[in-house]
Each structure stands twice: as structure tokens, then as C-alpha cells.
């Protein structure tokens, strides 16, 4: 199967976020072929280069929407009229009540608005395809005037109505950048038209090429969101004028809604993302939660030897920053010490940024004040029951060792996304006590204790209860490890995506008809598991392609060899 992997500021770039996940996916599904279509996020990212790509990535095409671009394409009169019409529609859709606005009118009205946005978007895309590019037009006076008209029209959103000329210009420029994928030449039959399935690695800008590929070439779209882009958008620019935020939020909201509407399957990474997607109009029938996969191998040793842990040590592992609320943890530990005087706490992690460093210094001060140094006897050098450590040294080579050294892993965050550290602790088979934030409950299930955030006493009570009950600790640890191995391994992640790929393809009408010798269409000629024959019949040819710098390997369409059913099922 040929999969078009769409990323934004992600995969092939070294500094890309979620790059690790994509890399594992691509390497894990080696029997499929991947075409990577990447939008870069900044110049730095481009200069940093790519990660080494496995041979199954047959082509990579990139675009840089951050670059100011002047294509110098001047639209003719008819094209300009079409552009003004579509852009006006788009602007009107953005200026009327926002999608999440309950004040907005009834269901039909909002469906009408969504249709209007979609029509305008695809109209602009068609225009861009006909004319070869739209970036000059999207920044032209025609666009700004259309925006102004929409903002001043009756029924426009309150904050959109406040927009003045500079804001209109900024919005036009930002929309131009967001719509840059429209001007790309990715939607031809030799590019995204040739893939069987588009897999967008995130929502928002990365999904836009997928939407257009679906519109132009009927390629099914799969959207994976580990973090909701719409939500990230709300958090990034809190200080911009309200009119800019309102219009851009409307754009991103409508784009997300349209993406969810058109996608064949949406895979949120956790319940939180799922709730946002449902809120933005995703159909529940399309949602499949696929938990992020993590590499369990480094933690296997610790997980299989629960006896090597020091029964009186607690460990906290993570990046040190205020949101982790280490102060609460220290206060809780003070109470734990009152109940269990021999308890020790290891705080393992590096501060993130200057704020984190200041917070670390603060926590060290607090720890020194709360807990005096202790020595075993009058002639020994004392040490503090709370130690701040970093991994990588000879004493603590990796995080797995940190988890392994302790009987109990504590998480005290007040804000948390998906708690990767907690899952690592689960892999290590350690009992955990965590605060009820973010996706903690979802990850831990019933295999650890959960307390309210900012409640040191509750945290302390839970810790003491587990410290005093080694049997319960062991039971919880074993259950946690079993749960993590079932839900959060790389393998489950890859298997889930493999299954979803096949599911989507099995529901997609065949776009390419295979003819038999008589010239009759051959039913089931191109099954979901179809491969290019060169792949395994002639490995040498494959290597030649692999070594070459060019990515253009246009594979023949009709001549495909179906794999045997057993092989397909065994994967």
C-alpha cells in the first residue's frame, strides 16, 4: 500500500515534533511504501536537516510556508472575479458566528456555514490549480477588500467588526500563509494522486493537503492528532488584537471541522484530544483512540525485577518546571517523613528553560529548609533525604534506573498532557501515586493511586499507604506493567494503524482498475495489500532506488501482485 504521510513541522526534520512517532510508524510498517509530504515550520528546521530515512520512504516533498513568497502570478480578469467571489465567501464564513459559539443559530445554519467555508476553500484550491498559484492574489487588495466587506457586513461577529486596516492586513497575510498548501503542486496524479491513503500526522495545516487530495483525487484521509492543533492555536497568541484572534480562530475552527467531516477515520491520541474533536464536530463513528506507543525495551529489565527496588525510596522523574508542582511534592514528603521517618525522595530531571532553573533553585532551597541533612552515626557524613539528580551520569545512567531504584513513583503535576513519565513507570512495574490531571486517569486506569492535584496531604496519605503495604505495591506494579504493555507499546500503536489503513482501504472504492488478459476489469485485482513487484521479486532494483537521491519512482499501477491471504492476515 502506498501511504502519503502529511506532516507539518514534523517528521523528516530533525527538530520536528512528533518525529519519533512518525519514524517508528514508518519503520514499523516496512511492507508499505511511504511518500512524505512535509511542511516545514521555520528556517532553523530546514537548516537542521532530516533524520535518516528508511528505504520504504520512497519520496519526500517539502514546502516552506513560513517563507515570504512572491510568485508574481497576475490573475486575469475572469480569474480575479472568481477569486473575489470565493475569497468573499471564505471571509463571510469566517466573520459570522464562530463554530464553537452557542449563540450561533440552529444546526442547519451552522451546516450551511460549514458548506460555505468548504465551497470557498475548494473553489480557491481549484483556482490555484488552474492559475499555478495564489499567494500574490491572497495578499492583494482584492483579498483585503473582501475581508473588510465581510467584517462590516450585518451579522458579522462582534470582535470581527472591530477590525481596522492593520488588522485586516495581518489577517490577510496570515490566511495567505495558512492557505499556502493550496498553491502547491502536490495534487497531481504523480504526487498525492498516486497514493492509496493520506495520513495526516496532525490536524490543522498538515491536514489541508490531505483535504485537497481528497477533493481532487478522492484519496481517503486519515487524521491523527496527539495534540489538538486548534487548541494549540488558541494558546499561542493571547495578546493579538481580538479581531485577528477571532478571524483566525474561526478559520482554524472551520478548517478543523471540515477536516473531521471529510476524514475517513480520525485517531485521537487520548481522551482529551477526542473530546476536543467531538466538540469540533467529529463524528463519533469515525473516532478511534490510538494511544501513543512507547518503547518498552529499556524498561524491561526494571520491570522484571521488582525486588531490586529500595522499599523506602520514592522517585519523581520529569522535566522540572512550575507546572510539575514539586513544592506540593516536598510538602507531601514532609508528611510522609512524619509517618515513615526512613523514607527518601529522589527528584530526577533537568530544568526546562530559565524558568525551570529558577524553580529548581527554589525547590532546592525549600527542601534544604524542610529537611535537615541526616547521617547514620556521629562519624558519618550526612545527606539530605531529598536528592536532586540528573540522568546520564555514572550513578544514574538512564530513567529506567531511576524508576528501578524506587519502590514508588510519584507524579505531582497540576497540569499535564499525556503523562509519558507515568507510562514509563508503568513499564517498570512500579506502583504509582499521581495527581488527577490531564490524561493521567486514562493512562493509569485502575493500576495506581490517584489523588486530587495541589493536595499534599492526600498525596502523602496515598504514599504512606503504599509504603506500608509491599504486597499491594507489588500487585499494583504488576498490573500497571501489564496494562502498559497492552496499551502503550510501539507495537500496539503500529498494529492499530496497520489495521486502520486496511480498514479505510477496504471501504474505499477502487480508483484504479486492473484489467485481465482479455481487457476485462479484474475484480479485487488491486487488493489492500497490493505491493509493487519490484519490492520483493527483485531486491536489487529496490536498492538502486534506495541509493539514488531522486525520489521519483513512479510505480506501475496495473501490474500488481496480491499477497497471499495468510500473509495478509498474519501482519
Amino acid at each position, binding site marked *: 500500500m502506498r501511504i502519503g504521510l502529511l506532516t507539518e513541522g514534523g517528521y523528516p526534520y530533525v527538530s520536528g515534533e512528533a518525529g519519533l512517532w512518525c519514524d517508528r510508524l514508518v519503520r514499523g510498517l516496512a511492507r508499505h511504501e511511504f511518500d512524505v509530504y512535509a511542511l516545514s515550520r521555520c528556517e532553523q528546521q530546514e537548516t537542521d536537516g532530516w533524520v535518516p530515512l528508511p528505504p520504504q520512504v520512497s519520496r519526500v516533498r517539502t514546502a516552506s510556508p513560513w517563507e*515570504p513568497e512572491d510568485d508574481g502570478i497576475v490573475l486575469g480578469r475572469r480569474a480575479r472575479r472568481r477569486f473575489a467571489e470565493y475569497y468573499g465567501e471564505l471571509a463571510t464564513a469566517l466573520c459570522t458566528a464562530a463554530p464553537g459559539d452557542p449563540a450561533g443559530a440552529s444546526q442547519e445554519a451552522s451546516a450551511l456555514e460549514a458548506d460555505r467555508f468548504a465551497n470557498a476553500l475548494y473553489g480557491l484550491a481549484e483556482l490555484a490549480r488552474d492559475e499555478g498559484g495564489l499567494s500574490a492574489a491572497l495578499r492583494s*487588495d482584492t483579498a483585503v477588500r473582501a475581508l473588510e466587506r465581510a467584517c462590516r457586513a450585518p451579522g458579522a461577529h462582534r470582535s470581527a467588526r472591530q477590525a481596522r486596516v492593520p488588522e485586516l492586513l495581518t489577517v490577510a497575510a496570515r490566511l495567505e500563509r495558512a492557505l499556502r498548501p493550496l498553491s502547491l503542486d502536490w495534487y497531481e496524479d504523480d504526487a498525492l494522486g498516486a497514493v492509496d491513503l493520506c495520513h495526516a500526522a496532525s490536524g490543522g495545516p498538515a491536514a489541508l493537503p490531505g483535504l485537497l487530495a481528497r477533493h481532487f483525487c478522492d484519496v481517503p484521509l486519515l487524521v491523527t492528532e*496527539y495534540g489538538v492543533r486548534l487548541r494549540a492555536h488558541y494558546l499561542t497568541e493571547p495578546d493579538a488584537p481580538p479581531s485577528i484572534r477571532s478571524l483566525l480562530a474561526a478559520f482554524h475552527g472551520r478548517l478543523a471541522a471540515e477536516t473531521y467531516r471529510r476524514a475517513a477515520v480520525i485517531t485521537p491520541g487520548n481522551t482529551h484530544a477526542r473530546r476536543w474533536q467531538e466538540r469540533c464536530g467529529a463524528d463519533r463513528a469515525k473516532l478511534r483512540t490510538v494511544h501513543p506507543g512507547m518503547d518498552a525495551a529499556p524498561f524491561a529489565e526494571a520491570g522484571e525485577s521488582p525486588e531490586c527496588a529500595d522499599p523506602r525510596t520514592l522517585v519523581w522523574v520529569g522535566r522540572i518546571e512550575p507546572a510539575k508542582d514539586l513544592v506540593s511534592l516536598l510538602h507531601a514528603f514532609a508528611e510522609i517523613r512524619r509517618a515513615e521517618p526512613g523514607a527518601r525522595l529522589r527528584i530526577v530531571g533537568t530544568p526546562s528553560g530559565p524558568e525551570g532553573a529558577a524553580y529548581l533553585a527554589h525547590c532546592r532551597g525549600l527542601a534544604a529548609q524542610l529537611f535537615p541533612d541526616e547521617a547514620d552515626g556521629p562519624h558519618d557524613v550526612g545527606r539530605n533525604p531529598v536528592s536532586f539528580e540528573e540522568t546520564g551520569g555514572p550513578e544514574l545512567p538512564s530513567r529506567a534506573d531511576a524508576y528501578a531504584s524506587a519502590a514508588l513513583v510519584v507524579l505531582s503535576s497540576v497540569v499535564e498532557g499525556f503523562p509519558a513519565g507515568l507510562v514509563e513507570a508503568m513499564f517498570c512495574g512500579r506502583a504509582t501515586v499521581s495527581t488527577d490531571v490531564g490524561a493521567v486517569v486514562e493512562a493509569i486506569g485502575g493500576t495506581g493511586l490517584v489523588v486530587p492535584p495541589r493536595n499534599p496531604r492526600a498525596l502523602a496519605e496515598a504514599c504512606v499507604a503504599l509504603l506500608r503495604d509491599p504486597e499491594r505495591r507489588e500487585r499494583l506494579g504488576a498490573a500497571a506493567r501489564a496494562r502498559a504493555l497492552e496499551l502503550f507499546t510501539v507495537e500496539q500503536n503500529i498494529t492499530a494503524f496497520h489495521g486502520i489503513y486496511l480498514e479505510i482501504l477496504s471501504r474505499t472504492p477502487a480508483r484504479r482498475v486492473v484489467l485481465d488478459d482479455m481487457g476485462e476489469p479484474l475484480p479485487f485485482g488491486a487488493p489492500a495489500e497490493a505491493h509493487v513487484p519490484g519490492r520483493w521479486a527483485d531486491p536489487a532494483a529496490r536498492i538502486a532506488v534506495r541509493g539514488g537521491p531522486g525520489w521519483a519512482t513512479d510505480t506501475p499501477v496495473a501490474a500488481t501482485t496480491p499477497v497471499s491471504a495468510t500473509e495478509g492476515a498474519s501482519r
Partner: protein
Amino acid sequence: MSGLGELDRPETPRSPGAWDERSRRSLTGRPLADRPSAVDAGAREPSAGEREPGRGERETGAVGRPVDAREREASAVGRPVDAGEREASAVGRPVDAGEREASAWASPGGRQASAPPGDRQASARTRRGAVDPVKALMHRHRDLCERAVDPLEIAAGLEAHGVTDRTAARFRHRDVFSLAEEMYARVSRDTEPAPRPAEPSPPGAGATWVVYALLPGVLCAAAVAGLRLTEGRPRLITAAVGALALALALRAALRRGPLSAPVRTSGTWTCWLIGYALLGDGLLRTALAGGPDALPDGTADGAWPVTAAPVLALALSCAPAAGCAHLFAVRARRRLTASRGLADFSASVRPLLLGAFALYTGVLIALLTITGAVLDEPAAHPQALTLGALLLLARLLTVHGHAHAATLVLTVTAAAEGAALATLFAGRLPGCGFLAVPVETLVAVCGPAGVPAVACGIGALTLLVHASRRLTRASAHAGTPSSEGLR
């Protein structure tokens, strides 16, 4: 895994609470027993000032939550009404307090008694009986609520502060979204929009571009002086070096400051036009007389006379041109922030453009007069003036992103001048005499200056019309804010 969802990772809480207050308290040595324990995140720090008057109320409403829950349950039937009701009850505090007192005594007695006495006192002091917990929450997040443009923004902001569905359940909401919707609906929006921040004064462009803009004039003056003071071979070398230096200085001046353009443009046609101003008139005159018989020798009275005065004036006018462009850009930007609509802006910028253009023209006339007098050459006003105007307008259009039209007009003008010369020479061929007639007629009427003056004049007029339409649009001045961050 570490890379996953980096962007979406919730923000650090900005509200004071996570680590400032408590830790400061413990660092200043207050005993730990005094610490508020088991405080629930929702009602942790609702504005102490607001609640101060109802001290008695707080004492009695010690257990707070059950009372509050019942109250909300009762009013939770019709939510829209509910909001108004709560608003009202928040205003009428005394009545409300009395009510609560009664109900507080009535209901949670058993639980109060069961709590250990020390604990109860501590929690009584800290746990304020929240009449309207959503209002307290709104007060805590008032910045967020006031600036939110839709409920989802409030939801995202609340989540970044650690509010989860479990927290929202305490406010009797199904999830954060519906809590955010209530908060969004309850924010009063009758206040005027915040005054927009004053436009930051344009960054001190510094003196560098002024220096660069003066460079062509200075170098050209030096080259002209060199030509006047030398003879023979050194004069040839001076001319070559001077031309090269002038070209480089011009390039430097156009790369920086207000005359720098976002796109690279070719200077061929500009050089051709300036070259014509230097040599063209002499060539035309000698060609009409049957020449040229010799190459130009760098003097104004040789076989192929050179007119240095207009070129010097144009080189010197680089600085005023940059000044005019700067003036235009800065003023236009100021109008941009001040104007409310696009039509307003266009109307206010048009006189600005014409003013800047007129200013430059005036300065150029003065420079032409001065250089003509100093170099003792006949003042070549019309052709130099139209050329200067043409070049300025072309540059302005290029700077503001309309390089296409500017290049086109420059090319056409240069081609017209070249064609005029070519027809003169072509007319010497047998049977082609008619080719030279138009130029000869023009020269007979206006003198040799007529050809460049007409060509550049038509070009400048075209560009002026074009500029008064294009440069008065807001999109021509948009480049700066959005692209500055990118470059």
C-alpha cells in the same frame, strides 16, 4: 515519545498559586500546621478582597460545598435564567448571606461535628463558602474571559490552568466546554474595547542609510571633478573607475534603507537610461550632423559632448529620494493605523504620495540648477527632471511590491530611447531615409532634449497614474508587520 504533543502541552500556570505563595510562606518559616490542607483546586483562592465583608458567612458556611451544591441544583433547571439569577444574587449580598446562614445551620451539622476540631477550624478559615463558584472562577480568570473571542478559547485557557472535566463537575457542568460556555456567556461585554497599544515608533533607522544614500552623489561629484582635472589616459581611467564606483554606490544605496526592495531587480535599464542622460544628447546632436567622428573625450565641448550636470544632479538626488520614500512609508504607516476603512486610507494617502513626489521634483530642480551653474553647462531641465521622476516612481513601486509594472515601463522607455538613436542611423541606409523623419522632426521642434524628455515624460506619467492607484492601497503597505517577523 518525548516529542509527542510538545506544542499542545499545557502552559505553565501564570496565576500566582503554583509555587509562589505557599512556598514563600514556608520559606519564611511559618509552621506547616497552619498551611491550608486538602484545599480543592476549584475554590482555592477566590479573591480575598471580594469576600471580606461576609466574614460571618464564611464562618458558618464552613462546609460550604453541600450548601452550594444544593443551591445550584435548585437553580440548574433553566441555565440561561440561572445565570441572571446568580448575577442578581451576587449583587444582593446581605440577603444572600442571611439565606445561606439559615441553610448552612440547617443542613451540614453532622458533618461539621464529625471533623476533628483542629481541622475544622483551619478549613473554616480558608474554605470560603462560595455563593457562586463560577463567578469566583471567572474572577480568577478574568483576563482570559475578557479577551476570549469564543468559548473554546476560554476552554483552552482553563485547561492550560489545570481545569479538567473533574473540576468542571464541581461547578455542576458536564465538561470544561460547557463551563467555558457559561463563563463566555456571563462576561459583561459592554465595556469599550481596550485602547489599542500605541504604534511603536519606527525603529531608529539610524544614520546608515542616509550615509549610503549620500554615497552616489559624493562619488559622482568626485568622478566629475576628476574628469575635469585630468587629461588623456588618466582621464579614461578616472572615467572607468568613476562609473564603476557610481554603479556600486548606487547598488549599496538601493540595498538599504527606505529604497530597498523585497525583490531583487535588474539595474540594466536604469543604467542604460542614466547612460543616455550622460551621452545620448551629444550622440543625437552629432548623429544629426553626420557624426560621430570620435569617441567621447569627457568634455562638454568635444566631438561627442558629454553632459555631466544632469547625471551629477541625479546622483546627488539619491539622498532626497530616499528621504521622500522614507517620509512616504512612515506617514502611510501612520495613516494605516489611524484609518478605519480601506477607502479612508486610500483617500488620505493619495495627497501624501503626490506631496512626496512634488517634494522630490522640487529638490531635483534645485539640484539641476546648481550643478548646471557649477559645471557651467546648459541646464538640462526637462529630460533630467522627467528621468528623475521616472526613476523615483519606479523605485517606489518596486519597494511596495509592484516591481512588474515598474520594470515594464523602464524597459519600454529605454527601448524607445534606443530606437530613436537607431532610426537616425538606419535613416542613413539607402532608401530608408523615411525612418529618421520622426526623430528629426522632434529634434527640430524641441531640440535634442526632446527625445529623452518625451520618452521619460510619458513613462513617468504612466507610472504616476499607476502609482496613484497602486500605492494608495493598503495592501501595498502591508509588507512590514507580517514579514518583519519572518526575515
